């Protein structure tokens, strides 16, 4: 089939789904609305499969499908087309978005079955998929920005989906406003890059990128990429703009799986990978990205250890895993970043859906202190969650092991990385193993702490099918990117992902040949760290549940600080938000009331007074008017004649 037709189907199918469900938004039948929405995304998935199959059929260097629909705007030499292109990077993204997206839509039918706003929910979900596809396929930064804003809007709408609850509505607004801060920086980045290259077209910019690295901090590319990265910290929840993501868990759980774990939050990583020829020549930006990524990975993981809400734990885990992706791209391992993005989409979507299944079974209970022993009630959810767990803590040969290990290895080995980054990453990995094991123990294993009034049960088939599929992907998903050192010793298994991405990823400058012994050793260290901390967590939370409490009590100040999320929210409120609100109030009370309002009042009083004077002339006496007309004519005529 024609590529432009396929591309149109890929993009428009979710939009059509959105329009259909959007028009009949009051309809309460979950099966029909969900059927329409799922079919819409499934159609997209099929067309993206066909497109990617075509892409694979092309020769490696020429793999690109570019479709231009119409000219969107033209100002002088600045022309933007509604054009989209699929290359090796966006191919992975569209498969993940539409594939995982279809599964999550399917899961939502079961999860949202009893909700009155179910049709509206599916309409938003479809709109999100549409915008996300625009984001990943757009051929210029501006087209990407349209999708970038669109997914932000959908995220806001879906976080605040149960908006009658004030806290949830506030969480939506927090997400939206925090993202605005990042988006402003993204815009600045676009301005700088446009001023430098004279174009916003991604391929043209990548082609125009210089070959030598830019050493200065104030160079155009360094500044532009830094601004873009700040934009990415907003969308992808990195320090300092990560605060919205944990609150975003107020939305329905499948939304957390789709938007706040698998797709939207990875947009920042994707953007950097797509612009990798620009970022690689700005080593200062790369350093900032790597440091922020590593810090976020550790910082968020440490908060995750202390949380009691099942979704909050997963949310901090997501922030932490996104930190790993940024660490990867920051040290120049763009392929590893994309790889982790993909595997993370599988296992994190799986775990969010699993937590949704648990919450569903527990009648909207999210506190893991009131769970425990759910394994015997929910065998399928437990089994799939188990695969997600081994995947995220990096046990070979599950998906997360390959991607995380490649990131850790590159952060050590790459000339842009350093042993310090590796140490941070390894600590983060150990923490990840700890909090995920803690979550597993408290939710599924150990003694049941379920209140007597609640009778947990396995979720319906509609919800378990996506879990099973994602569970399988979490096991096998990593096998496409088996690192060379392992593949070689297992009998020349190729690193498929690296070969696939190779033509569109710029190599890291001055990369030395890998020492295999070193790689094996670091791999051994990180895996054993993860295993040990997983065992410690198992021991703490299943064998002797009183130990963690004792430890927490012995380091009470630190524990309190961490469990209150390092008081970052309070810090932002104290230093930025409240002063801003108070300042605005003062401006209003003083400047607005005293000057601006006064001036307008004086003007309006003047006009009204003047009108009153003139009004007195309008007596309503007809003959007086006639008289005045007569006198006027006489005067006018006399002037004309006298002249």
């Amino acid at each position, binding site marked *: 089939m024609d590529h432009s037709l396929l591309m149109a189907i890929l993009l428009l199918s979710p939009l059509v789904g959105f329009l259909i469900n959007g028009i009949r938004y009051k309809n309460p039948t979950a099966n029909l609305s969900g059927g329409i929405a799922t079919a819409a995304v499934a159609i997209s998935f099929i067309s993206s499969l066909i497109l990617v199959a075509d892409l694979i059929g092309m020769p490696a260097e020429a793999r690109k499908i570019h479709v231009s629909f119409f000219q969107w705007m033209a100002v002088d030499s600045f022309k933007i087309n509604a054009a989209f292109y699929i290359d090796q990077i966006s191919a992975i993204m569209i498969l993940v978005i539409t594939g995982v997206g279809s599964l999550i839509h399917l899961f939502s039918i079961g999860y949202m079955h009893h909700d009155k706003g179910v049709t509206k929910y599916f309409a938003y979900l479809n709109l999100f998929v549409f915008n996300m596809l625009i984001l990943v396929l757009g051929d210029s930064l501006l087209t990407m920005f349209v999708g970038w804003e669109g997914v932000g809007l959908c995220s806001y709408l879906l976080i605040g989906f149960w908006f009658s609850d004030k806290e949830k509505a506030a969480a939506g607004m927090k997400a939206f406003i925090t993202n605005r801060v990042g988006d402003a920086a993204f815009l600045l980045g676009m301005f700088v890059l446009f001023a430098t290259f004279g174009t916003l077209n991604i391929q043209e910019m990548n082609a125009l990128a210089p070959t030598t690295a830019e050493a200065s901090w104030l160079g155009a590319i360094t500044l532009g990429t830094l601004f873009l990265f700040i934009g990415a910290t907003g969308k992808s929840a990195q320090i300092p703009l990560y605060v919205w993501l944990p609150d975003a868990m107020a939305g329905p759980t499948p939304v957390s799986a789709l938007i706040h774990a698998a797709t939207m939050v990875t947009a920042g990583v994707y953007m950097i990978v797509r612009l990798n020829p620009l970022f690689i020549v700005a080593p200062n930006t790369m350093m900032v990205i790597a440091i922020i990524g590593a810090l976020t990975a550790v910082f968020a993981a440490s908060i995750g250890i202390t949380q009691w809400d099942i979704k909050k734990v997963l949310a901090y885990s997501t922030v932490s895993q996104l930190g790993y992706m940024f660490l990867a791209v920051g040290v120049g391992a763009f392929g590893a970043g994309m790889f982790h993005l993909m595997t993370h989409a599988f296992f994190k979507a799986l775990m969010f859906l699993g937590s949704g299944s648990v919450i569903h079974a527990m009648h909207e209970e999210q506190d893991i202190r009131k769970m425990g022993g759910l394994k015997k009630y929910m065998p399928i959810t437990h089994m799939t969650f188990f695969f997600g767990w081994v995947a995220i803590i990096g046990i070979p040969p599950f998906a997360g092991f390959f991607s995380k290990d490649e990131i850790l290895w590159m952060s050590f080995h790459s000339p842009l990385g350093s042993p310090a980054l590796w140490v941070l990453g390894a600590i983060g990995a150990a923490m990840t193993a700890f909090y995920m094991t803690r979550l597993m123990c408290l939710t599924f294993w150990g003694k049941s702490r379920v209140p007597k009034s609640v009778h947990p049960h396995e979720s319906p088939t509609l919800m378990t099918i996506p879990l099973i599929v994602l569970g399988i992907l979490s096991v096998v998903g990593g096998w496409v990117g088996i690192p060379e050192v392992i593949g070689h010793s297992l009998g020349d298994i190729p690193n498929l992902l690296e070969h696939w991405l190779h033509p569109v990823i710029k190599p890291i400058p001055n990369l030395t040949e890998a020492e295999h012994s070193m790689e094996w050793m670091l791999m051994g260290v990180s895996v054993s760290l993860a295993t040990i901390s997983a065992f410690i967590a198992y021991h703490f939370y299943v064998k002797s549940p009183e130990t963690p409490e004792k430890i927490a009590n012995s380091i009470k100040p630190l524990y309190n600080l961490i469990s209150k999320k390092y008081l970052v929210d309070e810090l932002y409120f104290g230093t930025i938000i409240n002063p801003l609100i108070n300042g605005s109030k003062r401006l209003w009370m003083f400047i607005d009331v005293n000057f601006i309002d006064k001036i307008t009042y004086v003007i309006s009083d003047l006009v009204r007074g003047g009108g009153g004077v003139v009004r007195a002339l309008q007596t309503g*006496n007809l003959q007086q008017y*006639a008289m005045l007309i007569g006198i006027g004519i006489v005067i006018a005529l006399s002037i004309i004649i006298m002249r």
Partner: protein
Amino acid sequence: MQSTNFLTEVGLNHYLILSALLFVTGMTGVLLKRNIIVMLMSIELMLNAVNISFVAFSKYLNNVDGQIMVFFVMTIAAAEAAVGLAIAVTIFKRFKEINIKFFEHLRG
């Protein structure tokens, strides 16, 4: 002006003087009378005074434009009379009198 004897021969000036007299009479009526009907009649008088000078000039200057203008004035006069009388009838219905002072009630 043509050199004609003012007392023996009727010329343009006679028409203009008649026109002016009629106009002033009409205007006086409009300004002084309190009865709406009389005022409307006075307005007709003023319009027709103007018509006389139009026709007179038209004849004197050998130009039909003035006469065509008269038709327009007559049309306007008819329309104006219709509207004016309608208002007068309404006023009468309401106040049982057609004094101009009641028009003051129309004041906003």
